[in-house]
């Protein structure tokens, strides 16, 4: 019997982010246009494992997914134990730019989901020239807060269980059980308070309504794709955002929720393929 070994390669890179020395884990596969993938709040780069193994993609793109500091196999920086983790817009942008610079990526495409879908809007606004194209999955300029996030990190409620249970409703009912539970497992494994800390960026520090002027989608195409079952970043949120950015292209994805790449990779492929083809042919 021959074991199946996936073509993904994982490594660590040491990156300085806002004065913090960070040991960042990343996985990559493929050659060609760099495609940098950003995971959702409280999860890690494993969400992109299917894309990393898709030869239709990796034959044209160098797909790279990194675990943000505090996530997955990337440790928090020194002294993390002395303060609560709170992701800010400034730190998020600095993290992405520092990682891209460390790997010497030449005008990468950035594809982010959820908080990653939000931050690509800020990248388009403030640093668009650095990127070949930007893809926001489940992204919008703002979503109204709809629950008390303090329940995500307190000693009398199991953090992993509650984070997974909370996001379980954001997965489309059509998504295969195998991938539904794999997606939830990542939430169960997240560090204490990290999902909540990411949501600080989402809820408190990144209301981008009215702040996205100057985005040049002719230079840096912007694609926004949102699953119809996502009630956190709803299709209406995404479509409203797209209408405010001349040239932004928005698609509502059928039978998908908040985690398209990990909850149902086959269904997601139907939607991401034409986007990646357009980028490759530009």
């Amino acid at each position, binding site marked *: 019997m021959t074991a199946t070994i996936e073509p993904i390669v994982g490594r660590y890179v040491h990156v300085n982010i806002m004065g913090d020395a960070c040991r960042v884990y990343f996985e990559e596969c493929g050659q060609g246009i760099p495609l940098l993938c950003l995971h959702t709040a409280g999860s890690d780069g494993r969400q992109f494992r299917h894309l990393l193994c898709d030869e239709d993609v990796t034959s044209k793109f160098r797909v790279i997914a990194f675990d943000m500091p505090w996530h997955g196999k990337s440790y928090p920086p020194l002294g993390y134990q002395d303060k609560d983790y709170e992701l800010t817009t400034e730190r998020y942008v600095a993290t992405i730019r520092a990682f891209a610079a460390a790997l010497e990526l030449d005008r990468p495409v950035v594809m982010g989901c959820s908080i990653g879908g939000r931050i690509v809007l800020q990248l388009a606004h403030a640093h668009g020239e650095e990127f070949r194209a930007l893809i926001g999955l489940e992204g919008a300029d703002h979503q109204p807060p*709809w629950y008390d996030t303090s329940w995500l990190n307190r000693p009398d409620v199991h953090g992993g269980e*509650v984070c997974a249970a909370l996001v379980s*409703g*954001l997965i*489309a*009912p059509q998504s295969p059980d195998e991938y539904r539970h794999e997606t939830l497992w990542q939430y169960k494994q997240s560090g204490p308070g990290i999902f909540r800390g990411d949501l600080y960026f989402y809820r408190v520090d990144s209301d981008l309504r009215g702040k996205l002027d100057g985005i040049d989608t002719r230079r840096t195409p912007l694609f926004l794709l949102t699953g119809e079952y996502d*009630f956190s970043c709803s299709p209406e949120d995404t479509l409203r955002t797209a209408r405010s950015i001349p040239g932004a292209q928005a698609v509502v994805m059928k039978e998908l929720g908040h985690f398209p790449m990990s909850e149902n990779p086959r269904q997601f492929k139907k939607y991401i393929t034409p986007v990646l083809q357009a980028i490759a042919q530009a």
Partner: protein
Amino acid sequence: MKESLEERFASIEPLVNANRRLVHRGRYLTASIKVCVGDSPFMLEIRGGEIHGIHRQSPLFASADLVIQATEEAWAALWEPCPRPGWHDLFALTKRGAMRIEGNSHVLFAHLQYLKDVLCAPRRRPAP
């Protein structure tokens, strides 16, 4: 004859108790949960993850750990075999204003997936 919403709600008791894995996951929960299906109130008694009765009649001012109210439309939509977007989860319904969850939020969040699975149990039972 098509099952009424009340009958579908009542089916939670045998469906949950027959699901040993679900009962096991709820083993640390003992609670009284008032559930309103439209205008019809029920008291759902949970003991160690098992459903120990769904009572149609309960005394006035009976205490409940949680009160979950939703329109008939919301319950019917939630229990469709493949529910529509925005009608497929307790929090989706809450966010759209079709459901209200009040009471001791600790009970809800400490046992969130168990309670979601209990209240969605009729989804797995095909309507006759």
